[in-house]
């Protein structure tokens, strides 16, 4: 535990109850959470929530039978003896109906590799959540005091403080504490030339820390974009060279590559084999479970395996995949420490309700030779710098993505020019050789990286992107 734990370790309490009651291999994942929320209506606080207490566990029972594994999962926030017994019975029933093509599963034992500490906690937030949240809210709203034409019209700050614990029938006991901060803010712009409709820029960020430093500059950038939205034109229709920054790529790559480069996809023959060329030489991507302050960063995964760095794509060539215990066993692999109870689609703040599956932590795109933002624009000459899509709607199966262009800028003669809005941009991330795809058509990657959600990446230049405009 990297922070002072509470007296009660959720998983251990449940494990103590299970140990004499089941002979099958088992695992318990526990979370004990406090959550605090502030909801804004303009600059006014309209609702303060917290403490929101949630403590629960997810337990798995494993039984090998007939060359298959029967895995039963149940989750509950009832930690009474009766509640634990009910979950145990439910998992037992579920297991009898389930089947998975692994002959055995080796749960990590107490002599398994030691997990090194990681950075995934905001100490001030952990120690003084209400005061730290209030201070951040004031710092966030302060830059708006001097602005008459831009206001926060809708938003919330939500922080979650979690003690995660895990134990299993092999005797492993693991615990750590972490923080998660979610910011949603709609910045509305008015004023200026008479008759121009209001504009809005939507901010949606998940981070490990409430970082007040540089907030003024960030607010300036949000307000500028909200104003730019008011004087946009629709893009032209046709195949277009675009620059996609990490704010856009973060909605696309983790959801699609996290699945298609996983044991779950490999088992279903939806992945590309190791050594297959699926992208341009400019693209190298790893999954890094220890990336500083990444939302998926933890000392160990949700099955007790130390999280690590796993190369997925090296210069456009498939070099690895993500596994949890079960898929690794089914495929004859070794788990990569990616057994996670998460959903990239819904970004849950509690995880004990979900069974583990192979999932990405933080995807890290290696910086390339594309240089600065200005140099990327210069290389594009004519195209679009896409700042925000309404939503990219990533489809992990087909790898298709696409959505409305909410904020973009035309690149004209190698410079960022007027703002663009409307129409759609889309394509697929992965395609057979010779067909257009985001990975294959990545011409260059910028030189400096930024962590946005579950992705650390520089901006990419993509050729031949389908844009439908007015």
């Amino acid at each position, binding site marked *: 535990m990297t922070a002072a734990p509470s007296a009660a370790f959720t998983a251990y309490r449940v494990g103590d109850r299970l140990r004499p009651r089941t002979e099958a291999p088992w695992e318990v994942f526990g979370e004990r959470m406090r959550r605090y929320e502030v909801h804004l209506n303009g600059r006014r606080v309209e609702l303060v929530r917290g403490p929101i207490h949630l403590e629960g566990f997810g337990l798995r029972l494993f039984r090998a039978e007939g060359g298959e594994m029967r895995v039963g999962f149940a989750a509950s*926030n009832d930690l009474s003896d009766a509640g634990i017994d009910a979950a145990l019975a439910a998992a037992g029933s579920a297991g009898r109906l389930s089947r998975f093509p692994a002959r055995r599963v080796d749960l990590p034992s107490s002599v398994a590799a030691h997990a090194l500490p990681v950075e995934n906690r905001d100490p001030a937030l952990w120690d003084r959540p209400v005061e730290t949240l209030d201070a951040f809210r004031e710092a966030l709203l302060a830059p708006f005091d001097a602005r008459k034409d831009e206001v926060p019209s809708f938003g919330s700050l939500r922080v979650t403080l979690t003690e995660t614990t895990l134990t299993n029938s092999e005797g492993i006991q693991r615990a750590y504490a972490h923080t998660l901060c979610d910011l949603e803010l709609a910045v509305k712009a008015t004023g200026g030339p008479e008759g121009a409709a209001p504009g809005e820029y939507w901010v949606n960020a998940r981070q490990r820390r409430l970082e007040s430093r540089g907030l003024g500059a960030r607010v300036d950038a949000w307000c500028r974009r909200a104003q730019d939205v008011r004087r946009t034109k629709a893009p032209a229709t046709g195949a277009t060279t675009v620059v996609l920054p990490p704010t856009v790529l973060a909605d696309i790559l983790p959801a699609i590559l996290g699945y298609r480069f996983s044991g779950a996809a490999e088992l279903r023959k939806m992945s590309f084999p190791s050594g297959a060329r699926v992208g341009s030489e400019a693209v190298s991507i790893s999954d890094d479970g220890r990336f500083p302050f990444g939302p998926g960063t933890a000392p160990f995964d949700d099955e007790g395996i130390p999280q690590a760095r796993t190369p997925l794509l090296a210069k456009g060539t498939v070099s690895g995949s993500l596994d949890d215990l079960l898929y690794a066993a089914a495929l004859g692999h070794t788990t990569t420490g990616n057994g996670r109870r998460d959903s990239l689609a819904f970004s849950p703040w509690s995880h004990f309700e979900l069974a583990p599956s192979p999932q990405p932590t933080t995807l890290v795109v290696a910086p390339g030779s594309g240089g600065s933002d200005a140099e990327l624009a210069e290389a594009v000459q004519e195209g679009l710098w896409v700042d925000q899509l309404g939503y990219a709607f990533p489809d992990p199966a087909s790898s298709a993505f696409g959505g409305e262009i909410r904020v973009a800028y035309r690149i004209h003669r190698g410079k960022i020019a007027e703002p663009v809005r409307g129409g759609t941009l889309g394509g697929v991330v992965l395609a057979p050789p010779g067909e257009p795809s985001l990975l294959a058509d990545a011409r260059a990657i910028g030189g400096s990286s930024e962590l946005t959600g579950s992705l650390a990446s520089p901006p990419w230049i993509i050729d031949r992107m389908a844009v439908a405009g007015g």
Partner: protein
Amino acid sequence: MTVLTEIESDLERALRVLEPLTPYAEVMAESTGGLRLRLDRESRAATPSPALEGAAFRAWSNDMWLETVASGLTSRTLAGAAEALADRLRSAPRGGRPPGEPATGSGERSTVEQRREEDFSLDERIAWAKERFDWATAVPGVTNAFVLVQSIQDDRLFRSTAGARAYQRFHRMVGQVLCLAIENGKVETDYVGEGRTGGVEVLDLIDRPRVEQAARDAVALLSATSPPAGRMHVILDPSTTGTFAHESFGHGTEADQILRDRSYLKPLLGTMVGPEELTIVDNGAYDGGWGQIYFDDEGTPAQRTVLVDRGRFVEVLHDRETAAALGRQPTGNARRADFLSRSFVRMTNTYVEPGDWSLDELVREAKDGVLLEHFKNGIEDPLGGNMQLKVAKGRRIVDGELRDILPSMALSGRVLEFLPAIRGISKPADFWISPGFCGKGHTDLIVNGSGGPYLLSEAVVGPA
């Protein structure tokens, strides 16, 4: 699952702690359950829904709402959450009354299951799923199919210091078949899915012809050509029409957005915004609709609210606070995703009412364009008045005929340009409400139904 009426005295006791400290307090206790069975060629997983129970307490303090939440429904956890809220009330300035009038009525309602889930054995569920899997994978070219059958039980009990008591028990059933076709690393899918408030009878809607059609279309999508891009005639299928209603008018008519001055619709109330054929409704009382509720989470009974009446924008959706601010009555749209989430003005079942065209007539009227089928997602833009919809597939329309299949597409455009371009809405026989989940912003996902018949208009479409 805890029987909520059995802990009612604990809820009353908790409210009594708050009563001297606030002009108004309420509690929403919730208990959930259900079972999810999922199988494909490689694996089968039966997973009981998380047994989550808890209660959200809300009280007015001077000029804002304060909330705490209890995890679990024991006397200790309920008293603890009430005491934490009491502490905050004691340290906050006193005075003021909460906006609007509280609900004061009492009622109990439960979903009527024509075929009860308790009579649907686990073996029968597996047999149901296997049969759909076999139907899908018997189609040449389909390599796998993911079949889901899920039940959701959601019990809620609302009590307030104003005397309101609303006890409701929902039962929802979901069936889905996702068909998978793979060739040379290219993966395409199509699906058939239904979700409704009701019992096992809902699963009868996933029949063999629909599964086989989805399977054939998944295979056909492997060789489909790219969709056309640009502005064109579009026909929305019923699921996409529903998403249009939800994203275009639903979010913009949530009255809290109007009070925030964050709705493009605000200046348009009372004006004609579309053709006379267009009527858009939100209806929490729609029997069997996926988004059906009996009471909202402020204790107000669900109701049918006409938002656009024959082309005229006439009403918005309210909770007690927005109704008071705008001089209207609450419409039963104050909803929490669960006991862990706040209450917002939210939609329930939002739909376009039928017109009098046939699909064939709409296709002939369009002459050229695309038919958009199987909505996948949508997203709102309540201030800017734009919308975007994504569909899993479509058909090209050429010379007034439906032609080849098209892969996934996104539609985008300004709602106020899309509405006047509506040229036809199909008949009641095509009307259907589809299940979905809706966030406010990117969080607080709740169950929402959206539906309608086929609808012809004009918009920008591109690959997605």
